[in-house]
């Protein structure tokens, strides 16, 4: 018999109330886990796509709150960038979000420079890659193939042009897996944007340092007004939808924490009020006031920790479910990391401490003689 077992025992005494409290905390934590994973996951999936490609920096036009920055003529900008020190390779791409089928939501369509390093990290699962620059063909990601119900040899109409699907690929980035891929020349043709890209990918020299990257960023700011060099994660960070979902997740964290702490507070307050006489007995038996506080706070921490753990499970479940909804497929790549879960559990513990502190102190300050007379 020690303090922990005693605390656990006390919680078992009122199973319904303990379950209710745990459920309330679990729901709040689940919402936090789901929203945060999605909000950060959206950003992470784009960052992952770039990392997978081997791109170090991207250059786009400034001040775009849309998912896709506005297109620009690449010639001059590319030349300027290629002349900068430590820049190894500059490759443009065009990306759009288009409807290609009546019964599916819009998909990403990427146009990558034929023969560039961008294609290297993809794994060909079926069929072949485009043979040359102007070939009017498209390769699709495995996820896209599922969503559109298309396979190698089928045709798809993109912006009025008929494309044959010549292959299916797989990518480690969810965003690419749900996309259609063609050569840049073809993408420029069907969107009527000759010579234009919306993103320039930069590969820097292998020995480039953090300082060198910052130097490139600064040079771009100076030499190319209206343009900015950033990592892909930074680009998505600015996007209005991402900012909104992050704000929502932050708000949810706040609200869930408040509600969680209040629920624990209320439960513990009820609990000690019912145990007034018993607390008096404990004090009379020689329990120190600090031990009473430790007991009550232990009980509240156990409640909130269990609630947190359950909440994490539910939250992961919700996110998994959302990822599989038609609309969201191929768009989000929720990230679950161990540090994140520990942080959530830490938050739960904090909730328990905050909610249980006042009731604990209140219990410890009972006058034994009065408490014994209770009930």
């Amino acid at each position, binding site marked *: *018999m*020690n*303090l922990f077992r*005693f605390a656990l*025992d*006390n919680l*078992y*005494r009122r199973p319904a109330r303990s379950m209710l409290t745990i459920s309330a905390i679990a729901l709040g934590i689940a919402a936090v886990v789901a929203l945060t994973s999605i909000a950060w996951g959206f950003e992470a999936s784009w960052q992952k796509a770039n990392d997978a490609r081997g791109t170090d920096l991207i250059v786009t036009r400034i001040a775009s709150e849309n998912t896709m920055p506005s297109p620009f003529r690449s010639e001059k900008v590319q030349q300027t960038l290629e002349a900068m020190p430590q820049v190894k390779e500059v490759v443009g791409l065009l990306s759009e979000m288009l409807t290609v089928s009546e019964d599916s939501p819009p998909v990403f369509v990427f146009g990558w420079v034929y023969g560039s390093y961008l294609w290297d990290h993809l794994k060909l699962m079926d069929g072949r890659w485009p043979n040359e620059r102007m070939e009017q063909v498209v390769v699709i990601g495995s996820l896209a193939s599922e969503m559109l119900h298309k396979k190698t040899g089928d045709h798809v109409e993109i912006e009025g042009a008929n494309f044959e699907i010549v292959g299916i690929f797989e990518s480690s980035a969810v965003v690419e897996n749900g996309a259609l891929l063609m050569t840049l020349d073809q993408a420029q043709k069907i969107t009527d944007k000759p010579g234009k890209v919306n993103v320039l990918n930069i590969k820097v020299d292998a020995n480039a340092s953090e300082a060198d990257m910052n130097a490139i960023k600064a040079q771009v700011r100076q030499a190319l007004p209206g343009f900015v060099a950033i990592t892909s994660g930074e680009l998505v960070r600015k996007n209005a939808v991402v900012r909104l979902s992050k704000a929502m997740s932050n708000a949810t964290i706040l609200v869930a924490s408040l509600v969680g702490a209040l629920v624990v507070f209320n439960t513990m307050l009820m609990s000690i009020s019912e145990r007034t*006489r*018993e607390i008096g*007995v*404990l*004090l*009379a*038996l*020689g*329990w*120190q*006031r*600090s*031990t009473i506080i*430790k007991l009550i706070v232990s009980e509240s921490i156990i409640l909130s920790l269990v609630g947190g753990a359950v909440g994490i499970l539910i939250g992961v479940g919700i996110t998994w479910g959302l990822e599989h909804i038609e609309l969201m497929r191929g768009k989000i790549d929720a990230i679950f990391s161990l540090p994140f879960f520990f942080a959530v559990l830490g938050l739960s513990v904090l909730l328990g401490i905050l909610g249980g502190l006042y009731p604990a102190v209140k219990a410890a300050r009972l*006058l*034994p*003689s009065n408490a*014994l007379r209770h009930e």
Partner: protein
Amino acid sequence: MHFDDGQTKALNGVDLEIGAGEFVAIVGPSGSGKSSLLNVIGTLDAPSSGELTFQEQAYSKIRDASLFRRENIGFIFQSFHLIPTLSALDNVVVPTIGCAGSESEFRARAEDLLIQLGLRERLHHFPNKLSGGERQRVAIARALINRPRMILADEPTGSLDSVNATQVLDILSNIAKQEGLTLIMVTHDATVSARADRIVKMRDGKIENTHGATS
């Protein structure tokens, strides 16, 4: 000393000296202040005026009342006050939670005490499975677990039938004599008070008279 509990003068001029190892019974009608006296001795209440000392140590100078209680006093209540969701053994161990010392040692001592009190078969029973007498014996073991110097018992036999009452009384006085503990018992039962070394009669917050076996 005086003790004002806010509503009435529960103790109105009490002057008492108790020797170590004495068995003192405090008797009197209800409202005479006998429970208040016990509470004050047990540090559960503080007197509004007056001085208490225990073995040269002044109560007013006690820093940590809980620690003092734990080291020196064991309580026994009329309605037992066992924790209903803990076994007999766990109930006895409860007062040791938060103390320095090994859990297993405390547990072993608790077992010893319970066996000494004839509860070997009841170690893991819950209070609702124990008779009144058995429950009070668990409470006695609990009061003894921290090796106190004195036992304060408030109507310990009040909820027991005569057979169990006698049994509990025997146990208490024997253990007290054995361990050299001071036993202060509040009771309204004359057969109980007759067993004491000294009887203190109270009325209206004052000591009316005392007489003891020795006087």
